[in-house]
């Protein structure tokens, strides 16, 4: 456990720093797509929900797990689709204008 804990904290700290560095560079122009994309990415909590819904260890856990799968899946699908829909609209000045 303690070895796990140590490496997990390690991962958390490093990922936070990477996050800061990468996201600082995102142009304010794209802050709305940024939020919907990070939202979709953090919906990776889907993988936790999948195991709980599929393990069927108790009725309660299956119900909670299934609801969690619904919520995360809505974010995965919705988040990526709307991010792409927004990014498609960002166009540079076309020729002939």
């Amino acid at each position, binding site marked *: 456990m303690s070895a796990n804990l140590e490496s997990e904290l390690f991962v958390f700290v490093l990922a936070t720093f990477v996050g800061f560095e990468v996201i600082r560079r995102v142009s304010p122009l794209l802050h709305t797509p940024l939020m919907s994309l990070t939202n979709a990415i953090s919906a990776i909590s889907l993988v936790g929900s999948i195991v709980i819904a599929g393990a069927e260890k108790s009725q309660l856990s299956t119900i909670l797990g299934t609801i969690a*799968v619904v919520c995360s899946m809505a974010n995965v699908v919705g988040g990526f689709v709307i991010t792409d829909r927004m990014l498609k609209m960002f166009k540079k000045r076309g020729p002939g204008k």
Partner: protein
Amino acid sequence: MIETYFIQVTYITAAAAFILSLKWLSHPTTARRGVRVGELGMVLAIVGTLVHHEIVSYQWILVGFVLGSAIGLPMAVWMPMTHVPQRTALSHAFGALAAALVGTAEYYLHTEELSTFTMTALSLEVVLGFLTFTGSLMAFGKLQDLVPSRPVVYKGQNVVNLSLLAVAVGIAVYLVLNPGRTELFPAVAALSLLFGVLLIIPIGGADMPTVISLLNSYAGLSAAAMGFVLDNKLLIVAGALDGSSGFILSVIMCRAMNRSFTNVLFGGFGQVRVAAGQVEQRSVRNATPEEAAQILEAAGSVIVVPGYGMAVAQAQHKVRELYDALTRRGVDVRFAIHPVAGRMPGHMNVLLAEADIPYDRLVEMEEINPDFARADVALVIGANDVTNPAARHDTTSPIYGMPILDVDKARTVMVIKRSMSPGFAGIDNELYYMDKTMMLFGDAKSFVGELLKELSGTRVGA
């Protein structure tokens, strides 16, 4: 063994894909590639998870996939761009609820085996998850006008809220030390749910960009906490990325309004303003569409300052036509974007991009401010407080110190406005009384339409 190996490989690849995805998002030319690689990472991780040995049946997983897609997809495809903040608030709510429910399930499944550390992470996951869930629903309600979007404040509010949180945290700490006391768990959940509601009630519509970013950060942190509970490093990475992104955005939003976190959350901005009626009656210069169109046509450079009022009036497409009409006449038209224009970070850019305004014409505040002095016309549409020069010099003004767009430096200032009513902060804008300011009274959409009519009346010179 081979299965664990497979899962680990997909997870590590997914983590790398997510980081790359955010990296590519930094610029509009590579951003869509970023979405692709993010999707790839997601699919990999899901496939990897499906072979997990604990899964005995796929029935409910499938149900969840179908239902979730049925909820998420229509919202993403048909939601109008003006409603993106609402969708974002809802997705924070979904994400947080998922984390909270997984935490709850884990707690009841493994009550006996939870170590102190796991239980700490689990409590954090559940408290943050539930409070973000109801908080985001409240934010959604305010954005959608289901709940009054003005700040609802009462005496002793902060004391009530903070003691409520303190009780929730207190019980959670007790649970960490005594995980067996299952009867206390629902109390923690209920108090967190309640706190989320109370936290957002006093926050006004204009503070939504900060609040949404903050909720974004909370949702990310609860996902990361879930990673600690489930021993899943991919979740920790994704949650940390989301959490730091939300945090950075909230800091940017706070700075753009010259306020602190505590001030946004506990300040109840805008409720104790003196009635705006008592300002002395100063005269403003009222102008017709015809006069305004003549000046715009003769201008060399025009900077448009769009605010949320423009989006409310649904005027962005008319504004694009105005942009086209002026550009055709050789006028250099650019848009000055204040960081808090709109209801979430970057919202105004999306609205203008949707109206087909090229993104290289959208300029951030710091970049465009020096150019106002050289601009012939600054055309303010539906923006107010972010153009008020009082923020620079009037120490008694509630918005003193807030970074503003230097609209008053332009040669001529035009303000399209419904009436002389003040902005959300209830502050009179001295910009309107300057000699070079022309007030164009009317609805943004119809007024810009009239400007267009005037412009098309005069032929374009060869």
